[in-house]
């Protein structure tokens, strides 16, 4: 298991924002975290990234990457892990890129921060762009000149360039057009199949989760209420809430 979460609790004072008893993400697997806004799914991601503390939350429990405990790690040690071994992409790709810098500069700078030389950084960036089927010349543009879908793919390219083992995706396609979403999801599948990445995919859309994720955990009001192989959970939901979530997904056939 690449990522192991046990008894994770994210608290704001007395308020439990997220409580995950057990969640595993293995290499070459996409696990979905489904729920509405406020269900705690984003908070869980923040906790894994070690960023929940910045928001003022207290985090208890265990988060292990390949057996190494992440909670309680020193900020310096955490920085080596976060971004390098655990990468993340978010709902608003534009907000992940500093608009004042060219995209290529942002990417290579991130790579260099994690120890690569300038030449290595350039090469890896170029290779990664090819992997996400984006033309190299986009690297010389500013974020504002790229579409949402293109930016999201660059964010994924960065994760690839860093040789990240785990990818946390927080509603990465919710703000994208449906055909662009399809492309990004296809890309994520490739990451799972050809690079063996462990992907934790957060979404409120069960249809997307059904198509993409091998396993799914349903969250409600901060708690994980149901977990299992996606097909099983969808075919035979145990909880009423899960049934509700399934029922509200709009279907093409009306």
């Amino acid at each position, binding site marked *: 298991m690449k990522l192991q979460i046990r008894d994770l609790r994210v608290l704001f004072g007395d308020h439990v924002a997220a409580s995950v008893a057990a969640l595993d993400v293995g290499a070459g697997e996409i696990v979905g975290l489904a729920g509405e806004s406020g269900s705690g799914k984003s908070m869980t991601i923040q906790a894994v990234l070690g960023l929940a503390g910045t928001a003022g939350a207290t985090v208890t429990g265990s988060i292990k990457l390949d057996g190494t405990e992440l909670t309680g790690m020193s900020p310096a040690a955490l920085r080596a892990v976060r971004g390098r071994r655990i990468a993340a992409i978010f709902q608003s790709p534009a907000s992940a890129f500093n608009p004042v810098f060219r995209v290529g500069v942002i990417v290579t700078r991130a790579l260099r921060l994690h120890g690569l030389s300038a030449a290595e950084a350039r090469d890896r960036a170029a290779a990664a762009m090819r992997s996400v089927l984006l033309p190299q010349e986009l690297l010389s543009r500013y974020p504002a000149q790229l579409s949402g879908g293109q930016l999201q793919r660059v964010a994924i390219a960065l994760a690839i360039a860093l040789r990240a083992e785990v990818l946390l995706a927080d509603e990465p396609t919710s703000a994208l057009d449906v055909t662009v979403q399809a492309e990004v999801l296809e890309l994520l599948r490739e990451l799972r199949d050809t690079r063996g990445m462990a992907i934790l995919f957060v979404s409120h859309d069960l*249809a997307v989760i059904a198509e993409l994720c091998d396993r799914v955990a349903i969250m409600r009001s901060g708690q994980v209420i149901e977990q299992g192989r996606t097909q099983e959970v969808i075919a035979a939901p145990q909880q009423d809430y899960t049934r509700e979530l399934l029922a509200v997904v709009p279907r*093409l056939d009306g």
Partner: protein
Amino acid sequence: MAAGVMLSVRDLRVDYGPVRAVDGVSLTIRHGPFGLGLVGESGSGKTTVGRAILRLVPAAGGTILFEGQDVLRLRGRRLLEYRRAAQLVYQDVDNSLDPRQRVGAAIGEVLTVHGMARTAVRDRVAALLSEAALDPALASRYPHQLSGGQRQRASIARALAVSPRLLVLDEPTSALDVTAQERVLATIRRLRAERGLSCLLITHNLAIVPELCEQTAVLYLGRIAETGPTASLLASPAHPYTLALRSAVPEVDPARRRSRIILPGGAQGAASRPDGCAFHPRCPLVIDRCRVAVPALRSVAPGREAACHRAEEVLAGLRPTGATAG
């Protein structure tokens, strides 16, 4: 005006500076209860069409007739009346209500401005909120104290305050969770029936169209790709773009999934509209003719129009290699 037709758009053209965002779009919206789905992605010009219809952006050409009147020429009091008859529901749920105004006051203001007596306003506001499936007690709250779905429904309640006949919904659910989305759509469906409304649903998500719209029009780079009754259009598309759109919609039920048609290249902007068919650089069924000749929107079956040189073939079942039939 043909019987039953409320709004008729003919050959609408809208420019954003040097870019022609809408290039000759024609639509028909019937009297309510009725829904027309205008489906397209970023750069398709769908929002612009909606805004042009409401006179929120100037049109560069074409005609828009609302119950016989030339919308583009309306002025003064007639324009005001039209503005009341046709209302817009915004995509931006966070900014469609004044953050410093309580929800009830926002709706009440509309009623007051249109002459309702102070004493009657309170009750009417409560009634409108209930119609939008909101607890009347929410009238005393500020927008940020409501959930996204509630805010959207409050906006709808406000739009209903002027008793519109046409509701233009611009991506009404894109910013919402699936559960909130369902509630908003259900509310609109009910209002449509109760008030006999006509709705123009602008969206990129094909999946929400069937429950609200009898007719659908697919837009690509400012031009109509195809139109027709929703059920038949979705079941047997006559345009390759519709095929791709349909295949991209995620499905919960694995049995219903179609194999993805991934369109090469990124989304195009209207500024770089190619010669010939606007879709040809990305079309999986492109032939030489597509690169030079702009396909005209023509009838390909009763009630079905498509702008594609191979429309009949697509309608008959032609698919890109590798795609599952359907």
